[in-house]
């Protein structure tokens, strides 16, 4: 029971991050490898606020704002000038941005891990199992955020425009959609979600270092690919699946050293069986 809840809440974290990868891929047609490092930026924003005696709630707001701005600035300065450039150039730039973010935070905060305390939430008794409140919180808030995102994409004018841009950028432009603005909004939303993920992540692992974002970043990217990159429900499914598998593997002593291997093994198997991912859509070739 405990394992399931922990897995689901870790899955919610992965899903929140995976959404950033998948939305940016779907709409801007690029892999934003610096996305994981945005989590790290959010984490340090939270740390700084707490160190300045700010309330945790303020810290969360600051973290979300800082990440959103960071996402917009990165898109504007690094990726927008490369619109229409070769995918390889964009990919290399993304890796460069990733190292830049890590190096800058190392300059400011140093390389040593720093502890962070996000209050003590205690545990609750659910179905006869002691489950930590932070786990429940992650699960509930994460689900609410994802539900909001789904409604936003389905129901709002901007959300529909995002779907249009992801399907056919040229046709979207002919509808009068400001494609550059939609791409910017996508980066903003993806980064805001990464900030939320960073808060939940720190509740589980209360320690920061400049490379903090790498591992959850890679895991979430894996989740996005498993679910079908470009697909929003796919990212959610992939994230939850990976989170549960990770916690289950960790709970089995014989398997726990190989947890990461199992996760990436799953990725390989899924890509072999279904190259477009679980919920991925076949891209029609243009005629």
């Amino acid at each position, binding site marked *: 029971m405990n394992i399931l809840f922990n897995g689901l809440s870790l899955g919610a974290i992965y899903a929140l991050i995976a959404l950033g990868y998948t939305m940016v891929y779907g709409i801007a047609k690029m892999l934003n490898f610096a996305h994981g490092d945005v989590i790290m930026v959010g984490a340090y924003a939270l740390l700084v606020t707490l160190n300045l005696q700010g309330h945790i709630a303020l810290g969360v707001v600051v973290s979300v704002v800082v990440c959103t701005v960071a996402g917009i600035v990165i898109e504007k300065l690094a990726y927008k000038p490369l619109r229409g450039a070769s995918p390889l150039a964009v990919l290399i730039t993304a890796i460069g941005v990733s190292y830049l973010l890590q190096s800058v935070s190392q300059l400011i905060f140093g390389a040593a891990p720093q502890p962070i305390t996000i209050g003590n939430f205690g545990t609750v008794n659910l179905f006869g199992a002691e489950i930590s409140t932070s786990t429940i919180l992650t699960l509930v808030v994460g689900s609410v955020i994802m539900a909001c995102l789904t409604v936003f994409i389905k129901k709002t*004018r901007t959300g*529909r*425009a995002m*779907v*249009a841009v992801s*399907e*056919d950028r*040229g*046709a979207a*432009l*002919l*509808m*009068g*959609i*400001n*494609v*550059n603005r939609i791409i910017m909004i996508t980066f903003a939303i993806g980064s805001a979600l990464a900030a939320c993920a960073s808060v939940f992540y720190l509740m589980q692992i209360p320690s920061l270092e400049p490379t903090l974002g790498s591992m959850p970043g890679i895991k979430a990217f894996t989740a996005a690919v498993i679910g079908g990159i470009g697909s929003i429900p796919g990212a959610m499914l992939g994230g939850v699946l990976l989170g549960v598998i990770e916690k289950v593997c960790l709970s089995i002593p014989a398997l726990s050293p190989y947890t990461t291997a199992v996760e990436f093994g799953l990725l390989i198997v899924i890509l072999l069986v279904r190259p477009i991912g679980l919920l991925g*859509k076949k891209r*029609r070739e*243009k*005629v």
Partner: protein
Amino acid sequence: MALLEVKDLQVYYGVICALKGISFEVNQGEIVSLIGANGAGKTTTMQSIAGLIPIKGGVVNYDGQPINKVPGHKLVKMGMSQVPEGRRVFQELTVYENLVMGAYTQKDKKKIKEDIDEICTRFPRLGERKKQIAGTLSGGEQQMLAMGRAMMSHPKLLMLDEPSMGLSPLLVDEVFNIIKDYHKSGTTILLVEQNAKKALAVSDRAYVLETGSIAASGKASDLMNDESIKKAYLGE
């Protein structure tokens, strides 16, 4: 008065010159067609005017102002609308959602609903299929949807790129009838066609494009009787 005025338009794909400085105009209330063989540069012309591909040289004036540097999405608000080559409807959205997307620049929700009803009377096939996913429509139905979608923004200038492509003869006639009808309701039309005979039959004037240059131009009725045009484009 010229609604659209193209002067010495040059467009390049990398180093390849696709349009070598073409000039033409579309006057308010006209139907003008642009005909020419495969690869002549018709689609390039349409897309560069709409801001989909960058213009290298020359001037495009629309509604009295230069639009070379105006971003494509703003042109829709200015009353320019295009049915692109290959239809390019949003395959994953329903017919209804596609039409709503066509009204992206329109703000009045109630008016949008009324417009969709109007489009569905103009295209009864769409009315029957509002909930259908556009990707599952037949080619002809997708063409109707692309046209209906382009009409949702109430254009002053409607540009159509090969609307008859891949359609059965009966449907081709239907498409041309719809274009004529829509023109009567007060919209200026720029039409690109391979089907030169049908295009000239509905047009006031026409331009013949040959590998990136205008090779001939004139009143549609004159071009229809021109011996060299007959030979090259009308298959006579």
